[in-house]
Structures are given as C-alpha cells and as structure tokens.
C-alpha cells in the first residue's frame, strides 16, 4: 500500500456524497412503498383503478403521508422559515430560537459547573473518591425521564419558561465536561509537574500555567458532546409543557395531529441546529489551539 496525499474530493466529498445520495434514493423508494396503501385505499373506495405511475405521483404529494418525501420536507422548512415573519408562532425560526436559548443557557451553566467540579476533583482526594463514582452513576440514571417532572413541578411553584428547560440541559451537559476536564487537568506528565515544583510554583500557578492550558483539547472535545446533548435536553424539556413553543413542542403537536411533514421539518431543524452548534465549538477549538501555538 502506498501513501497518498489526502484529497478533499476523493476522500471526503465523493464517498459522503455517494452515501447521502443513496440514502435519499432509499428514502424516495420508501416513500412510494409506505404511502402507496393509502392511495390504493382511496382509489378502491372511489371505485376507480389507479395506475402505478399515478400512485408514484400521488405518494409524493400527500397531505399527511406516512413518510413525507424529502422535497415536501424542504418545502415545508422553506415555507416556515422564510415565508413567515420570525415573530409568528408558525415560524420555525421562532421555535428554533426558543429551543436554542434554553440550550445555550443550560450549556453555559453545565460547562461552568463541570469545570468547577473537575477542578475540585483534581485538587481534593476526598472529592475525587466520593464524588467521581456518583458523577458516573448519575448518568446511568435516565435523567430525561425526570425532565417532565422537573418542568411540571417548577411550573407549580411559579418558575416557568427558560430556566426549567435549561436545568435539564445543565444536568445532561455537565457530565461530559467533568469527565473530560478531570482527564485533561491530569494530563500533564509527572516530569512537567516536577519542573513546576523545581520552580517553586504555587498550586495556583501550576494550575494556570500548566494544568489549564494542557486541558484545552480535552475541554473542547467534551464541550462538543455537551452542546449536542444539551440540545436534546432542551427538546425533551419542551415535551411536557403542553406543546407551547419550541422544537420539542412542534414534534409533540405534530404527533398529536398527524402532521408528519411538520414533525420531519422540526427534526431537520433540530439536526441543523445541532450541526451548527457542534461546528461553532469546533471552530473555537481550532482558534484556541492556534492561539496556543499548536500545529493544526
């Protein structure tokens, strides 16, 4: 095997493009098969024969399809983002913004909490021994299951809106940050710590000049996971509020009224949001590493 230069076209675009194209093809075929029974039923009820090409044509443009065709979803997204004013309740941008604000608030609190806990765990043996197992155990609990209760209970005592959803995001996002940062703050080797010791550096100096900088790659890797999971938390947090606003509410309302196109467009919006958030963290990662003089 010979080593070749990495090519963007051959190693990235072509394979990913092929797989995506395949997926879209499978999707269209699935649209025809899943939506065809409905067309046959309507035709049978009307007492008419329906040809295959007519079925194919009809399955692509049903009002409430079992599986909407990709172009229907894209049309719906276009319609609800561009053609509606942003402040309107029917605008997807409005719902996405509500979810996004809860996500960001939760992510911010979660990341700060995670970093603080990690600093405590690294510097205090008792915290390390007693807290770490519980931090891990806390994630084997399906916390999303608690989400509706947190929302409803906080609503009952008058706290509603952004904060309850953000709390769920916080709970979900602090864990990857704690685990990553504990690893990162412990990543300096013994020889480097010894060097700091020979400089007679205080614990604070060792922290700011050695531990903190060397934990940056770990921090950003876990921040990527954390931001993705806090979006999930915010979406699930919107389910029990009775479908008021947000992407989760759109999902729930869509499932109540059988509006499959609406569900799929909310899903795509959520996916796009997740992708953008992860990308922003990724850019911050490269920017910080470049600032620190790391080779890309």
């Amino acid at each position, binding site marked *: 095997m010979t080593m070749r230069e990495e090519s963007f076209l051959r*190693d*990235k675009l*072509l*394979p*990913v*493009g*092929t*797989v*995506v194209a395949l997926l879209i093809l499978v999707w269209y075929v699935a649209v025809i098969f899943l939506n065809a029974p409905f067309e046959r039923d309507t035709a049978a009820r009307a007492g008419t024969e329906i040809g295959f090409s007519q079925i194919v044509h009809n399955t692509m443009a049903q009002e409430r399809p*079992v599986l909407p065709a990709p172009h229907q979803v894209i049309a719906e997204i276009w319609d609800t983002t561009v053609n509606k004013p942003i402040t309107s309740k029917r605008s997807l941008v409005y719902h996405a913004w509500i979810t996004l604000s809860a996500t960001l608030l939760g992510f911010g609190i979660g990341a700060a909490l995670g970093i603080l806990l990690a600093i405590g765990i690294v510097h205090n*043996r*008792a915290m*390390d*021994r*007693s*807290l*770490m*197992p*519980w931090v891990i*155990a806390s*994630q*084997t*609990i*399906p*916390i*999303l*299951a*608690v989400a*509706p*209760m947190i929302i*409803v*209970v906080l609503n*009952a*005592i008058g706290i509603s809106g952004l904060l309850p959803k953000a709390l769920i995001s916080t709970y979900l996002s602090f864990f990857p940050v704690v685990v990553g940062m504990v690893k990162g703050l412990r990543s300096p080797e013994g020889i480097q710590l010894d060097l700091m010791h020979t400089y007679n550096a205080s614990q604070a100096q060792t922290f700011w000049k050695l531990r903190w900088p060397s934990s940056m790659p770990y921090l950003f890797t876990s921040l*990527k*996971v954390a931001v*993705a999971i806090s*979006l*999930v938390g915010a*979406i*699930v947090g919107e*389910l*029990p509020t009775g479908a008021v606003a947000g*992407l989760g509410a759109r*999902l*729930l309302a*869509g*499932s109540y009224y*059988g509006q*499959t196109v609406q*569900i*799929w467009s*909310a*899903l795509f919006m*959520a*996916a796009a949001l*997740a*992708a953008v958030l*992860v990308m922003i963290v990724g850019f911050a990662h490269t920017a910080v590493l470049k600032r620190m003089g790391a080779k890309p």
Partner: protein
Amino acid sequence: MNLPILVSAIVFWLAAWAVNEWLVRQRFEGDAANRAARFAVPILFGVTLLVLWEGIVRGFSVPSVLLPAPSMIWQRLINSLPTLAADFRQTFLKAVLVGYALGCGLGFVVAILIDRSPFLQKGLLPLGNFVSALPVIGVAPIMVMWFGFDWQSKVAVVVIMTFFPMLVNTIAGLAAASHMERDLMRTYAASWWQTLVKLRLPAAWPFIFNALKINSTLALIGAIVAEFFGTPIVGMGFRISTEVGRMNVDMVWAEIAVAAVAGSVFYGVVALVERAVTFWHPSIRGGRA
C-alpha cells in the same frame, strides 16, 4: 421549620465529610481493608446525600408535591411493587433489551460488512459521527406512528439511537490494530477472516465496549422518552408522565428510582463483561496508564 432535624442532618453531613477526608488519607494493612475503604467512601457520600435530602425536606417542611423525602419514596415503592414490576417488564425487558440487542448487533454487523470497502467507510463514518450528535430522540413520534403504541415502536427508537454509536465505534476499533501487527498476520499468510478474528476484533473490543456502555444508558432514555408520545397504559415513561399530571410526585420518584437502579445495573453488567473480555487492557490491568 423543624430545626433539630435540620441541624442533625447537617451535623451528619459534616461528620461524614470528616470521616471521608480521614479515610482517603489512610493506608490500611492488607488489600481487603484498602478495597473496603475505597468502597466505603462513595457509599458514605451517597448515604450523606440521602440524609441531607431527608433533613432538608423535613427541616424546612418542603411540600411533598415539590420534593418528597426519601423515606416517603421508599414507602411508596414498597407499596406499589406490582405496578412498578409491570412497568419494568414493559419498558425494560421488552423495549430496552430487545432494541439494545438489535441496534448494537446491527451496528456491529454493518461495520463488519463495510470493512472491506474503504469507500463506504469514508462515506459512513462522517455521517455516523454527525448522526451521533443529532437529537435522534425526535424520531420517537414518527416511530410511534409507524409501529403503533406498544413496545415495538419503542424498540424501533432504541435501535435507531444505538445503531450509530455502535457503527462508529466498531469502525474505529477495527482500524485500531497497528500496521506492524497486520503485517505480521500477512507474513503468516492469514486470511481476512483469520486476521479479523485473531487480531482486529480483539483490538477492537475496548472501542466496542465503549459503545455498548454508551448505548446502555441511551437505550433506557430512548424507550422512556418514546413512551411520552403514546403507549398502552403500562410502562415507565407512561407512569411518569401520568403521575406527574396527577401530582403524585412520590410515585414518579419511585419509578425514577427503579429506572436508576435498572440503568446502573445494566451499565454495571456491561462493565463487568468488559473487564472479563478486555482483561489485557492497561486501564483494567491497573497499570499507570
């Protein structure tokens, strides 16, 4: 406000903290004592949390709608064992376990199938990574529409949620064996299957178990959240959402306790199997790695 209870809870907390600080500084004679001490520290911390919780709830007489005391939750749990058992059977034994096995198995098989095609790998790996970051849980309403209210739709959600982490990790794991080792297999004239079974799969186990552990919690979350979108009148997610509506918060907490224990045991079992299978790995051998 009930001051004595509050004060005694706080005293207990401080005392337990002091004991923990003392315990982690001790070096005991013999392995058994050391191991016991290592277990005692987190357990004491957990007990402290419960005592503090009980103390605060009783001390400030927090209304039980807001936060029931642990003792009250325990009472409720004992009293409604049959309901909880039925929910557990519906959600965990049917939806979670079946979906977990199917999703992980499928991810593993697909990873092996596309192993010979670098083209497909290059195409699927970024997509898999992308999908792993997506709020996959959102497909739950669609699955409920397609597969009905019963556990089959929950299985579908769990399969979708667990498939991609498994796929990505298995592909990464299969690439983990070094070139030196693969060249050695070539000099033995080993076939693709022999290389897979004897070298690459063993090297991939740590990655695969990583996915299995991630998936064990994802599966439970997926099944419970999917039940929010519609279920027959049994199941952990169903119970949680209806009892919240009726403000029976202690029942909700009992259900959460069951879910927490089930999730922890599930994770623990996977971790134990991992220790047995990847006994050679530095992180398990107890080296300084």
